[in-house]
């Protein structure tokens, strides 16, 4: 366990050192660049984080809630139980998201949404803000991210309401 953790940290440090352009080598013009900060450089973190808003703007929690529900956007209910009672059938693949704001800081949630594989490379959770490095993507989605930078911010703002 500790071993794995150290490895992840080392990997992130390497990426930060390279200015983090590796992950977004292709199509980098279309995607906002971001910096991942890990727990070594900021001890108040429990997991790596992206501290700055991707758009420089605050997110809109009401729109975030819509994005989370939308099956063509976040589709988070496929895998998570959330306090959204008007929607039937919440999936159970991931943990319940009620209370997630007391478990994570804003920047940590942002990284989880951008690319949860930085925290767990085996996770089934899709990277919502990544547009390259995939295998055999359907042409409708080639070179695109699942969510826009602003939608990521909106979802982060919504998750921060789940205390």
């Amino acid at each position: 366990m500790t071993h794995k953790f150290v490895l992840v940290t080392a990997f992130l440090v390497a990426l930060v050192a390279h200015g983090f352009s590796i992950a977004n080598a292709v199509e980098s013009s279309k995607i906002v660049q971001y910096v991942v900060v890990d727990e070594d450089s900021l001890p108040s973190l429990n997991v790596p984080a992206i501290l700055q808003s991707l758009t420089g703007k605050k997110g809109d929690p009401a729109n975030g809630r819509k994005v989370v529900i939308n099956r063509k956007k976040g589709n988070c209910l496929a895998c998570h139980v959330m306090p959204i009672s008007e929607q039937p059938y919440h999936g159970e693949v991931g943990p319940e998201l009620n209370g997630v704001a007391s478990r994570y800081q804003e920047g940590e949630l942002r990284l989880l949404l951008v690319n949860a594989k930085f925290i767990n490379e085996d996770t089934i959770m899709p990277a919502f803000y990544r547009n390259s490095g995939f295998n055999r993507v359907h042409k409708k989605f080639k070179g695109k991210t699942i969510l826009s930078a602003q939608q990521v911010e909106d979802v982060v703002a919504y998750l921060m309401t789940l205390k």
Partner: protein
Amino acid sequence: MACKFIVFSIGLALALGIVHETGHAGEWGKYQVEDRRSGYTYRTKETRAMQDDDFQNPGMALVDEGEALWSMVDGKAGKSCASCHQDASVTMRGVGAVYPKFDIGLGKLKNIEQQINTCRTGQMQATPWKWEKGQLLAMTVYVRHQSRGMPMNVKVDGSAAPFFEKGKAFYNERRGQLDMSCGSCHEAYPGTRIRADMLSQGQGHSFPTYRLKWQKVGSLHRRFRGCNKQVRSKPYKYGSDEYVNLELYAGWRARGLPIETPALRN
């Protein structure tokens, strides 16, 4: 006689002992072998009841259609399937359990749909049936139905081995914008709800299957295409080498489980 009886008793005791040890005694009956559980066991009671009752299972209509086609003369050779294969319940019994299978002439695997069309073009001098259309689906259902209840038993060693390995690699390779492998869902989370649906182990022994969502019977390759598309990946063609190899791996994942064709799923 007495001797035979004793041997039988010991055999029975051993068999019961093994069942007891693995701890799966009877929970899902024949639909579970070791830790392999048929997709049937992940469906609701209502869906299972519909499959169990041939009069309620709409897939059974294709068995009747297939039976009619079996003795229908077609093609320049003036033959029907029955001209050469006679009674399907005898000659086709067990065939569904061992396909896809390595074909020496082709130098690769061949599935049942492809074998049917090989007979149509080669033996009957008739036109091949189109994938996912009524006749090929009906005949595939009919042929596999002759093995209903028999355990899946595909050959994965010898000449089949390299194709099996390709199928396995496909199953474990991440793809699409959602970046998931087949195993991301069917190995990591069987028995878990993904939205309203409960994930199964993603096996191939029940196909062609009647799906309530499709409101018709569909082939295993149709299911593969759907599972590729839902992770936003470009699907392969019906009958492609990739899918036939994958079919062998999906069949092996169901080894020992009884063929259910035509199964019923939601």
